[in-house]
C-alpha cells in the first residue's frame, strides 16, 4: 500500500468501527420493524406507525433528558412520578383558571408555564440534593419518586384529577392534531431530540456534561463547575418531563396515582439500549431515540398477535430487550 494513503486508511477504518457502534441501536430497530411486518402486515401501515411514534413521544422526550443525566454519571428514578405530579398540578391550575373567563389559549398557556416551572424546579431540587447534599443520585431520586407520587395522590385525594371538559376540547389537538399526517407529539419529539443532539455535541455545556461523567476530577481540574453542570442536567431533565406532560395531559385529560408509573425504567432503558454508557461520559442522543422507539414497538408488536398468552407479555418484552442489545453488541465487535 502506498505510504500516503496509509494514514487516511487508518482514520477511515477507525471511523468505520465507531460508526458501526453508533448504528447498533438502529440495526436492532430495523430488525424489530422486519419482525413486526412479518407478524402482521398491518404493522407497516402509516396509521399504526404514526400511532406508535406518537405514544413514544412522552418517554422519548424524558429519555432525551435522561441521556444528559446518565452521561453525567447520574440517574433519575423520579421522572415518572414527577410526570404524574406535574400533570396533576397542570390540571388543577387549568381547572382553576377556566371559570375565570380567560380565553382558553391563555388558560393552556398559563397551565403550561406552571408545569414547566414546577418540573424544572423539581429537577433542580433533585440536583441540589445530589450536588449540595452529596447523596447518591439513586437514593435522592428514589426518595423524590415517592414524594412526587405521594403529592399527586394527595392532590387527587386518592382518586383522579380530571381536566375540565371545556378546556380539554380546546387543548385536545396538542396530542391528536397533526401537520401533514405527522402528529404534534412526533414533531416535538423530533425537535427535542435534535436540540438535545446539538446541545450535547455542539455546545460547551454538552461537552462539560460529557467530561463530568467521564472523569469528575479531570473536569474540576479543567475549571469546570462540576456541580453546576450536574444541577443544570437535572434541571434539563425536569424541563423534558414538563414538555412530556404538556403533550400527555391532552391525551388522557387526567392524572392519578398511577400516571407515569414505570416511565423512569422505560426512559433509562431507552437511554441504555441506545448505547449511552450507564457509568457516564459517553452519550448517544439518536441512540436514545432509537431505544425509545424500540421499546414502544415491542409493545405494539405484542398487540399485533394473539398467539402469546397475555401472562407472558413481559417475558417476551424482556427477551426482546436483551436480544436487541445483544444484536448491537455483536454488530460492534465485528471488525
Amino acid at each position, binding site marked *: 500500500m502506498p505510504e500516503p494513503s496509509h494514514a487516511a486508511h487508518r482514520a477511515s477504518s477507525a471511523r468505520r468501527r465507531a460508526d458501526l457502534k453508533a448504528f447498533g441501536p438502529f440495526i436492532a430497530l430495523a430488525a424489530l420493524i422486519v419482525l413486526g411486518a412479518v407478524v*402482521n402486515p*398491518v*404493522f407497516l*401501515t402509516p*396509521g*399504526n406507525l404514526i*400511532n406508535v411514534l406518537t*405514544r413514544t413521544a*412522552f418517554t422519548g422526550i424524558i429519555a432525551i433528558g435522561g441521556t444528559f443525566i446518565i452521561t453525567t454519571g447520574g440517574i433519575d428514578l423520579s421522572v415518572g412520578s414527577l410526570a404524574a405530579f406535574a400533570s396533576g398540578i397542570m390540571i388543577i391550575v387549568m381547572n382553576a383558571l377556566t371559570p375565570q373567563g380567560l380565553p382558553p389559549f391563555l388558560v393552556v398557556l398559563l397551565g403550561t408555564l406552571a408545569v414547566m416551572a414546577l418540573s424544572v424546579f423539581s429537577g433542580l431540587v433533585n440536583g441540589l440534593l445530589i450536588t449540595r447534599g452529596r447523596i447518591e443520585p439513586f437514593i435522592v431520586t428514589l426518595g423524590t419518586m415517592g414524594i412526587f407520587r405521594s403529592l399527586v*395522590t394527595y392532590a*387527587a*385525594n*386518592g*382518586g*383522579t384529577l*380530571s381536566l375540565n371538559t371545556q378546556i*380539554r376540547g380546546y387543548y*385536545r389537538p396538542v396530542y391528536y392534531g397533526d401537520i401533514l399526517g405527522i402528529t404534534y407529539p412526533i414533531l416535538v419529539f423530533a425537535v427535542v431530540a435534535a436540540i438535545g443532539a446539538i446541545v450535547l455535541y455542539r455546545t460547551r455545556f454538552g461537552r462539560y456534561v460529557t467530561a463530568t461523567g467521564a472523569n469528575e476530577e479531570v473536569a474540576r481540574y479543567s475549571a469546570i463547575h462540576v456541580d453546576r453542570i450536574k444541577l443544570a442536567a437535572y434541571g434539563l431533565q425536569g424541563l423534558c418531563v414538563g414538555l412530556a406532560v404538556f403533550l*400527555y395531559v391532552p*391525551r*388522557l*385529560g*387526567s392524572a*392519578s*396515582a*398511577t*400516571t*407515569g*408509573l*414505570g416511565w423512569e425504567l422505560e426512559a433509562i432503558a431507552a437511554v441504555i439500549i441506545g448505547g449511552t454508557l450507564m457509568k457516564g461520559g459517553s452519550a448517544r442522543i439518536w441512540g436514545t431515540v432509537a431505544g425509545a422507539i424500540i421499546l414502544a414497538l415491542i*409493545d*405494539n408488536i405484542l*398487540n*399485533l398477535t*394473539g398467539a402469546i*398468552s*397475555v*401472562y407472558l*407479555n413481559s417475558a417476551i418484552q424482556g427477551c426482546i430487550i436483551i436480544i436487541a442489545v445483544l444484536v448491537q453488541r455483536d454488530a460492534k465487535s465485528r471488525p
Partner: protein
Amino acid sequence: GAADKKVLGVSIPAATHGWAGGLNWHAQQAKIELEKKYPDLTIALVTAGDATRQANDLEDLVQVRKIDALVILPFESAPLTEPVRQVKNAGKWVTIVDRGLTDPSIQDLYVAGNNPQMGTNSADFMVKKLGGKGNIVILRGIPTVIDNQRFDAFMDVVKKTDIKVLDSKYANWNRDDGFKVMQDFLARFPKIDAVWAQDDDITLGVIEAVKQAGRDKDMWILGGAGMKEMIKRVMDKDTLVPADVLYPPKMIADAMELTAKHLMEGAKLEKQYIIDATLVTPDNAKQYYYPDSSF
C-alpha cells in the same frame, strides 16, 4: 364467508394482583369458549399495566387488529374516557365493564360491578354483626377511584353508628402488605373487634398476622371479591371469616359473552347489567364456590 368473520377486542388490566389475576383467568377462559362456540369469531385479548398503556392498546386494537367490538375494563375511568370515545367514533360497539366512564353516553353496554354497593354491604354486615359498636381497623387497596368509592360508601354507613374506626392504611391489594399493616395494627391497638380488609388478597395476609398474634378469638375479618379460599372458609363456618362480599372477576366473562352474542347473533341487549356485590354467608356460600378458578 370472510364478511362474517368478526373480531372482538378485549382490554383489561394485567394480572398484577389477585383480583386482576382472576379477571385474566376468566377472560382467557371465556375467549376459549366463545371462539369454540363461534368459529367466525376471533377474540383479541390484551392486557395493560397502566392507563397509558391501555390507551395504547385501544389504538392498536382498532388500528391493527381491526376489531368490530370492544369489551373493556378500564384501568381508571377518567383517563380512558377519551381513548374509548375514539374507539366509539371509529364505529365500534363498546362494552364497558365495572368502571363506568365519565361520559356514559359512549357505552353501548355497561356490565357493572358496583363498588359503592360493595362498601355499603360490607358496612351493613359489620354494623349488624358488631351490634352497632366496637373498634375496627380498615386496610384499603391502592389509591384509586374504586378504592375511594368503596371506602366512602363504607364510612357513610359506619359514621352513623358507635363503631370506632381506629385507623385505615393502604395495603395495596397485596397480601404481604396486608400482613405487614395488620401486624402493626395489632401492635398498636390492644382491642380490635373487627377488620375490614375489603379484598381477599389482603385478608389472606391479615389472617396470618392475627393468628400469629394469637388474637384470632378476639376479632373477625371481612374481606371481599370472592376468592375461592375465602368462600371455602365461609362455607366451613370459620369464625375468623364469617362472610365475604362478592365482587366477581367473572363479570368480564359475562360481558364478553353478551357482546359476542350481540355481535354474532345480533341479540338485543339491555343497556346495563348490574352485578350485585352480594353478601356471601354460610347459607349461600356453596353457590359461589368455584374450586377450579385460579382466584
